[in-house]
C-alpha cells in the first residue's frame, strides 16, 4: 500500500533545522521497518511487546525532551512533533509512545520531587518502565471532579480504593499516575495524583478492553483494593494539587491531538489520491470524475487551512502563549475534520474502503476516538463557549 504523505500546499513556517531533518529520517526508518510491519501481529495480541518499548528507548525516541540527567536527549518540541507525525505516517497505532513521552513524563518532570524524577524518568526513557495515566472511571470521564477512587491517609502512607477504566497502556503498565480523592469533601481541591507501581499489593488489572479500533493498543480496567502506597508515592509530595496539575497539561495534550489528527488527514489524502489515480470505472480514472476532484479539493483545502492554524498554535505554544480556548479549537476542529475527511476517503475507495486490509478502513475505525479522548469535543466547545464574552452570570 501507498505509504505516501500529502504535502501541505504552503511551506512550513516551523523553525526546523538540518538536525531535525536527520532525526526525522531515522524516526521514519524505525517506524517503517520495525513498528508498522508488526501491527497485524500486535492487533491479534491486542497488545505490544515490551521489546518494542525497549527498542524505542535504545534509539532515544522515548521521552526525548527530558533533560539528560533524567535519561532524556534534551530534545525540543519539534522533535516531539516529528515523532508523532512519523508514527501516524507509518500507520502504526501502537505502541502509544506519546502517552509515555508527552503525557506521563511531563507530569513527573514538572511536578515530581527530585527523588520521584530520579526513580522513574530514566527507566521511562529507556523503555524499562511503561507508564499510563489513570484518570477516567466508569462514572467519571471528562468530568474529573466526579471521580470516586479515594486515597486515605494512614500513618506511613495512603490506602487507595476504587477503580479506573479505559486506561491506555493499562495492561503493559509498570507505573500508573493515578488520580484519587484525598479529600472527598473538597471537590477539585481534593484531587491528588499518585505514582503507583503495578506490582503493589491490592492492585489488579481487569480485562483488556475490546475497542472499535486501535486493536494493537492495550486498554484496561484497573482495580485498587485497599492498596497501600507510601507517602513518597504522592506526586510532588503535596495533597490536593491534582486538578491544577492535570489542567495545566491539557493545552499541550490537545495540541498533540491536533498534530496527530492533521497527520492522519495528510495520510488519508495521500493514499486516496493514489487510489483514485490507479483505479478505473466507466472507462476513466476515478480521479477524472468531477465529484472525486471536488471532494478531494475540499479535503485538501481543509488540510491546508489546518496546517496553517496548527503551525500558529505550535509557534504560540513554543512561545508559552497558547491559551486553553485556542488549543480547544484546534482539538475540536482538527478531529472533526479528520473524521469527516477519512469518511469521504473511505467513500472514494468504494467497497475496498470497507475492507480492513486497506489502511483507509483502519483509519476510519482507529480514528473515531479522537473526537472523544483528550476531552470530548463537547468539552472543547464548552471551553470555547466560556470565552465568548457577554456578561457572565
Amino acid at each position, binding site marked *: 500500500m501507498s505509504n505516501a504523505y500529502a504535502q501541505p500546499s504552503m511551506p512550513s513556517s516551523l523553525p526546523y533545522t538540518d538536525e531535525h531533518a536527520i532525526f526525522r529520517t531515522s524516526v521514519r526508518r524505525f517506524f517503517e521497518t520495525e513498528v508498522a510491519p508488526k501491527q497485524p501481529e500486535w492487533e491479534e495480541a491486542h497488545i505490544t511487546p515490551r521489546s518494542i518499548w525497549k527498542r524505542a528507548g535504545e534509539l532515544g525516541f522515548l521521552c526525548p525532551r527530558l533533560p539528560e540527567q533524567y535519561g532524556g536527549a534534551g530534545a525540543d518540541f519539534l522533535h516531539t512533533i516529528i515523532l508523532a507525525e512519523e508514527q501516524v505516517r507509518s500507520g502504526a497505532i501502537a505502541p502509544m509512545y506519546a502517552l509515555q513521552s508527552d503525557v506521563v513524563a511531563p507530569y513527573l518532570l514538572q511536578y515530581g520531587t527530585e527523588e520521584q524524577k530520579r526513580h522513574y524518568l530514566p527507566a521511562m526513557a529507556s523503555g524499562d518502565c511503561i507508564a499510563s495515566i489513570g484518570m477516567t472511571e466508569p462514572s467519571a470521564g471528562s468530568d474529573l471532579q466526579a471521580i470516586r477512587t479515594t486515597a486515605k491517609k494512614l500513618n506511613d502512607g495512603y490506602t487507595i480504593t476504587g477503580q479506573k477504566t479505559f486506561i491506555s497502556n493499562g495492561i503493559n503498565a509498570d507505573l500508573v499516575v493515578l488520580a484519587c480523592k484525598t479529600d472527598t469533601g473538597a471537590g477539585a481541591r481534593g484531587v491528588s495524583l499518585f505514582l503507583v507501581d503495578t506490582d503493589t499489593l491490592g492492585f489488579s488489572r481487569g480485562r483488556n478492553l475490546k475497542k472499535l479500533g486501535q486493536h494493537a493498543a492495550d486498554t484496561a480496567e484497573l482495580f485498587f483494593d485497599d492498596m497501600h502506597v507510601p507517602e513518597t508515592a504522592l506526586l510532588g509530595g503535596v495533597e490536593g494539587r491534582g486538578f491544577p496539575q492535570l489542567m495545566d497539561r491539557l493545552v499541550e495534550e490537545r495540541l498533540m491531538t491536533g498534530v496527530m489528527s492533521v497527520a492522519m488527514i495528510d495520510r488519508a489524502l495521500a493514499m486516496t489520491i493514489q487510489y483514485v489515480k490507479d483505479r478505473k470505472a466507466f472507462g476513466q480514472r476515478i480521479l477524472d470524475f468531477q465529484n472525486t476532484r*471536488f471532494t478531494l*479539493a475540499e479535503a485538501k*483545502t481543509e488540510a491546508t487551512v489546518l496546517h496553517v492554524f496548527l503551525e500558529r498554535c505550535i509557534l504560540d505554544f513554543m512561545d508559552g502563549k497558547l491559551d486553553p480556548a485556542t488549543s480547544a479549537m484546534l482539538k475540536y476542529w482538527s478531529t472533526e475534520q479528520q473524521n469527516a475527511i477519512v469518511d469521504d476517503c473511505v467513500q472514494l475507495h468504494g467497497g475496498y474502503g470497507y475492507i480492513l486490509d486497506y489502511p483507509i478502513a483502519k483509519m476510519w475505525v482507529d480514528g473515531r476516538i479522537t473526537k472523544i479522548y483528550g476531552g470530548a469535543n463537547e468539552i472543547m466547545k464548552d471551553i470555547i463557549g466560556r470565552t*465568548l*464574552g457577554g456578561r457572565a452570570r
Partner: protein
Amino acid sequence: MIRSRHYTPAHEDFRATVRRFMEKECAPHRDEWQAAGRTPSDLWRKAGEAGLLCTKTSSEYGGGGGDLFHCLIILEEQTRICFNELTFYLHSDIIAPYIELYGTEDQKRQYLPKMATGEFVAAIAMTEPGAGSDLQAIRTTAKSDGNGYRLNGQKVFISNGQVGNLIVVAAKTDTGAGAKGISLFLLETDKAEGFTRGKNLKKIGCKVQDSSELFFDNVHLPPESLLGGVEGQGFPMLMRRLPEERLIMAISAVANMEEAVVETVEYTGERKAFGQRLLDFQNTRFKLAECKTKAVIGRAFLDRCIDAFIEGELDTTTAAMLKWWTTQRQNEVADECLQLHGGYGYMMEYNIARRYADSRLGRIAGGTDEIMKDIIGRTL
C-alpha cells in the same frame, strides 16, 4: 485580531479615520440607499476627500500609496456597521490596479487621479448572460474600424453598473482566437453614444449596491481606450489579478464571521427565554463556539495568506482555497447566527439578516465555489 508581519501602527491610525467616515457618512443613510438600490455619487466624492479611495494606488497618480491593509481596514470597518456591500474595494483595489499595472502612462494619468477623488466611479464588465465564470465564452465584440473600435454586445450583473461612469469592458477583438482574442477597454460612459444601462437588478442581498445590465450598440471606442494599447492581453490581465481579488473577498468573509459572532453573543446575552438568557443554553454556547472556531481559524489562514501575498508568494491554488473556505464558512456562520436570533433573525432591520443574505454572494462572485474546487482539484 490581525497577526501579520506587515501590519503597523500607522494602519491603526487609518482605521480610526475609516471608522469615523463609516459612522458619519454611511451608517445614517442605510434605509435611504437601500430603498434607492444604490449609493449616491456624492458618497464617492466624500470618500475620495477622506482618502478612502485608491488607497493602494501610487501617490504619483493621486492615490494613497498604501497596501492591502488599507483595503482590509475599509472592509472590516464597513462590515462592522454591516455595510458589507459597499464597493470601494472594487473601485480601488480591483479596478484601479488594472489601470495602474497594465495601462499606458496616458491612461494612468487620465483616470487614476480622478478615481482617487471619486470623480470617476469605476465598474468592470466581464460577465454576460451566456458567460459567467467561463470568460472565454463572451460574445461582446470590439471591431477595429480604422479610427478605433466599435463595441457591440451586452453585460449583466455588473456591480457599480448604475453609479459607474468609467467601465472596464472585456470584449473580443478577435472572435476566432479564444482567450487570446479578449481585450479590455476603458469606457467613459458620459461620452459614449450607443451605451445604455439596463435595469438595476433586484438581488437577494447587497441591497445598497447596484448591479446592472449594460448594453453596447455600436459604441465608438477611440484607439487610446484599449487598456495597455495592445490587443489580446485581456485574459492574462484578468487571470493575474485573481489571487488578490479572491484574497479581498476572503477578508470580507472573515470580518463578517467575526462580527456575526460578536452580534449574536450580544443578542443571546440579552434575550431571555424559558427563564434564562439564550446564551446560557448549552446549545447556544456550543453553536457559538463552533462559529467562533471557524472565525478564528479563518483569520489565522487569512493572516498567513496576506503575508504570503505581500511577500509575492500567494499562488492561485492557495487563493482559491482561501476564497472557498472562508466564504463557505461565512455562509454557515451567518445561518447559525441567524437561527440563534429566532424570528428577529428573519427581519431585515437586524444585521444578521443582512449578513445572511449578503454572504450568499461570496460563494458565487469572483469565481464560484465550483471554479475554486476545479482549480484546487487540478493540483491533486
